[in-house]
């Protein structure tokens, strides 16, 4: 008895499966006949997972079709097939399948199949409580400026801490060209260069550069000064083993460089070394605090000794680090 039931259900399952296979193919080979085409099980909107790819930081996107976005014809080009060779416009094969003479335009008859009406008679449009959501009128805007809104509370800023020493010996003009922030630093807490704090993070590591001792934690460097610690720009030559996750890789130059909000690191066997901004590197965003400057009729943005020249890459703006203009 038990076997019989199992047998029957398995058999039924197979029959149903077979019928479904037939039905699915029919529905799609007969272009929506009987209303089967629309949304019928076959076409799932499956979205593969995948990481990497496009970060929100990428300058452009969203707007015009960069790299063919928003266009069928150019979709395969752009970053994939840049400089594409298929500029030729062969007359499509499909042309052959088209009827030579189409009936004159006008009101096309509805497609066969008498699909049930959309919109008009659908039940369930009377969900309660719509339309009267309170209080959405006055939310403050979140427009665009997502970067740079750091929380600066609790940090004492005092640039007087820097006697001539830091300025001259380590940073020279470099110091002054740093903006106020580590813009690539974690969003959770803002750290301003020049800020003085009583204690450094517990996970700080010690970094030695030319005989001087600094402390490093999550992208930020500290120097000890009068029983306090002050935040300093990344000292060139310092080697650290870990970078903040917000650092991005850099294109346009050979070698493994990372951009941590305008502080550049080059990967080497024992970690990441602080380097000056590599000429030729392209970045999608300017470091916060970069200063616009015009030299010889050309606009640059200056930050930490690096000259950033803006370019259009497709419809997006990228910044290329160039040699200091004469």
């Amino acid at each position, binding site marked *: 008895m038990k076997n019989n039931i199992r*047998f029957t259900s*398995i*058999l039924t399952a*197979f029959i149903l*499966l*077979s*019928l479904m*296979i*037939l039905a699915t*193919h*029919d529905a799609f*080979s007969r*272009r*929506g006949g009987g209303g089967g*085409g*629309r949304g019928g099980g076959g076409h799932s909107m499956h*979205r593969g*997972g*995948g990481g990497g*790819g*496009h970060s*929100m930081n990428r300058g*452009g*996107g*969203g*707007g*015009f*079709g960069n*790299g063919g976005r*928003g*266009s*069928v*014809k*150019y*979709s*395969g080009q*752009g970053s*994939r097939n840049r400089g594409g060779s*298929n500029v030729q416009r*062969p007359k*499509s094969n*499909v*042309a052959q*399948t*088209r*009827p030579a003479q*189409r009936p004159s*335009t006008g*009101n*096309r008859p*509805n*497609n066969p*199949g008498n699909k049930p009406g*959309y919109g008009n008679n659908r039940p369930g449009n009377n969900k309660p409580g719509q339309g009267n959501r309170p209080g959405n009128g006055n939310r403050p805007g979140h427009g*665009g400026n997502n970067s740079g809104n750091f929380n600066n509370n609790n940090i004492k800023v005092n640039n007087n801490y820097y006697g001539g020493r830091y300025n001259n010996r380590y940073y020279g003009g470099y110091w002054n060209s740093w903006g106020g922030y580590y813009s690539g630093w974690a969003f959770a807490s803002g750290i301003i260069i020049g800020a003085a704090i009583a204690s450094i993070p517990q996970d700080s590591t010690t970094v030695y550069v030319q005989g001087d001792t600094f402390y490093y934690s999550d992208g930020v460097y500290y120097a000890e000064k009068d029983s306090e610690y002050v935040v300093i720009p990344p000292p060139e030559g310092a080697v650290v083993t870990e970078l903040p996750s917000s650092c991005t890789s850099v294109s346009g130059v050979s070698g493994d460089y990372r951009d941590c909000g305008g502080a550049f690191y080059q990967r080497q066997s024992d970690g990441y070394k602080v380097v000056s901004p590599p000429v030729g590197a392209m970045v999608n965003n300017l470091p916060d605090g970069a200063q616009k400057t015009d030299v010889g009729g050309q606009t640059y943005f200056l930050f930490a000794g690096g000259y950033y020249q*803006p*370019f*259009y890459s497709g*419809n997006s*703006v990228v910044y290329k680090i160039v040699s200091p203009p004469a």
Partner: protein
Amino acid sequence: MVGIRYIFIIAFYILSSAFALHAQAQEPTDTETQNTSQVIVDPEAAEILEEMSDALEAAKEFTFDTEITNDRTLDSGQAIQISGTMKTAVKRPNHVYAKYVGDFNTREVWYSGDKLTLYIPDKDFYGVLKTPDTLDATMDFLMEEYNFSLPLADVISADPYTSVMETTTSGFVVGDSMVRGKECTHLAFRAQYVDWQIWISNDDPALPCKLVIEYKELEGVPQYQAIFSNWNLNPKLSKSAFKPDLPKDAVKIDFINFKKDKGDDK
């Protein structure tokens, strides 16, 4: 034991019949659909698409609005939908103006025969390129050299049908569909890098109601959607509509020429 073997035999039989029937159904009963082994576009879908193409080709000038949504995939794999609106004006054979205002950026582009100007108001940057003197040649040129396509390039092309069919491999009519209260016919196509769908008005002229493009080769399979409205096929556009309107202090920047693979281009 006997029972199980029996089940398998029956199952095998049923499945074979199913496939045999299916194969039979695929036999060339309709010669029109069997012309080519690779490109299979339902003639009705092709016809409706060409009807739309003809309507756009016939218009010497036109304007339309679009509401655009576009997926951006975060590094985590999560898709975020970005949206914006765009106004487009086209005067054949070689004038285009478009302004996109979106969540994260705004773009304005003017194309008038020999040059194209792209302006980004929030950064106050603009760039100018010398261009070929027809719209389609310009669009090919922009993509080939600068990795840049004009908005809704397929729709504003001189021959939208040919433009989209260059890469399309299959297509069919899904059925009728309401888009913003208008009766439209829903078509679905596949191409090498994208699957795309278009909704075309059932009224005359057969203008686009909606376009959806799914980038199946990109991480996260992002989707682009444009919903069309306010079509005007006789807007009487003046030349000044295509003349760049830039603030005095806008900063001119160069385009990277990817074909030459160098960082500047004059």
